[in-house]
C-alpha cells in the first residue's frame, strides 16, 4: 500500500480509539496555536476586543482564557 492510501485508511478508520485520539491531538494543536497567536497579537498591541473579533468569540471569553497566560510586559523593555 502507498503512503497516501495508508493515510486515507487511517483517516477513515471506524475504530473509535483511532478517530477520537486524532480529535484530541488536533484539539491540542489548536490550543497551542491559539495561545501562540493571542500572545503575538497582544505583543503587537491588539486589544482583547480586536482579538475576540478576529477569533469570532466574545471579549470576555478570550480574556478569561488567555489573560493569565500572556506575559506581563516588563516596563524596562518599553
Amino acid at each position, binding site marked *: 500500500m502507498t503512503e497516501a492510501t495508508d493515510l486515507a485508511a487511517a*483517516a477513515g478508520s471506524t475504530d473509535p480509539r*483511532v478517530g477520537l485520539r486524532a480529535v*484530541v*491531538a488536533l484539539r*491540542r494543536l489548536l490550543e497551542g496555536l491559539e495561545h501562540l497567536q493571542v500572545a503575538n497579537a497582544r505583543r503587537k498591541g491588539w486589544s482583547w476586543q480586536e482579538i475576540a473579533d478576529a477569533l469570532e468569540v466574545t471579549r470576555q471569553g478570550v480574556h478569561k482564557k488567555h489573560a493569565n497566560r500572556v506575559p506581563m510586559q516588563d*516596563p524596562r523593555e518599553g
Partner: protein
Amino acid sequence: MFERFTHAAREVVVRAKTEALDLGQAPVGTEHTLLALLADPTIAAAPALKGLDARTVRAEIIRRVGTGTADPAALADPDDADREALKAIGIDLDAVRRAIEENFGPGSLHLPRPAARKRKGLMRRLSGSNHTPLSPRNKKVLELSLREALRLKHNFIAPEHILLGLLREGNGLAAQILSANGVDFTALRDDATRSLKSAAA
C-alpha cells in the same frame, strides 16, 4: 500569580525545569531556579555574585546531591503520541512546527498536556508535567517573588524579583551554594533592587 510574570521571568521558570531535567533531577528546586537566573545576563552581571557562574553552580549541585533522581518518563518526548494521531488524519506535526518556528523561534509552539488542562492553577501549568513538580521551597520562592514585587510597588514580576524571593527564602540549596561561595545576600539584594529601579524609570 503567574499572570504578573514577564516573558523573561517565565523563561526562568521554564528553564529551571530544563536544568533539572538535564541534571536528571526532580523535583525542580531552588538550585535549578538559581541556574536559570544565572542564564539571564543582567543577573549574571550582578557585582555581588563576584563572577559566580552557572557552570560552577552546576558542578556544586552535582557534588552535593549527585544526578539521576528523576523519573526517566519525564525525559520522553511528550508529543510522540500526538504526532502519530495527527499523521493518521494527514497532518504532519513536524511540518506545522517548522512553519511556526520559522516566524516565532524554536520551541514557540507548546501543545498543552492533558494534565495541564484539567488542573487548576498556573503553578501547575507552568511547572509542567507530573514528573517534574516544583519543590515546596521553590514554590515558596516564586510566591515570595510576588511579595517582593508588591513591596517595590511593581505590577510586574521580572527575574530580579525571583532572585529577591530566593534570597528572602534563604534556606534552599541555592542559598547554601551562594553562601558557600561567599556571596553577600544583602549586597546581592541591593544589586537586584538597583537593576529593577535603574531601568524601570
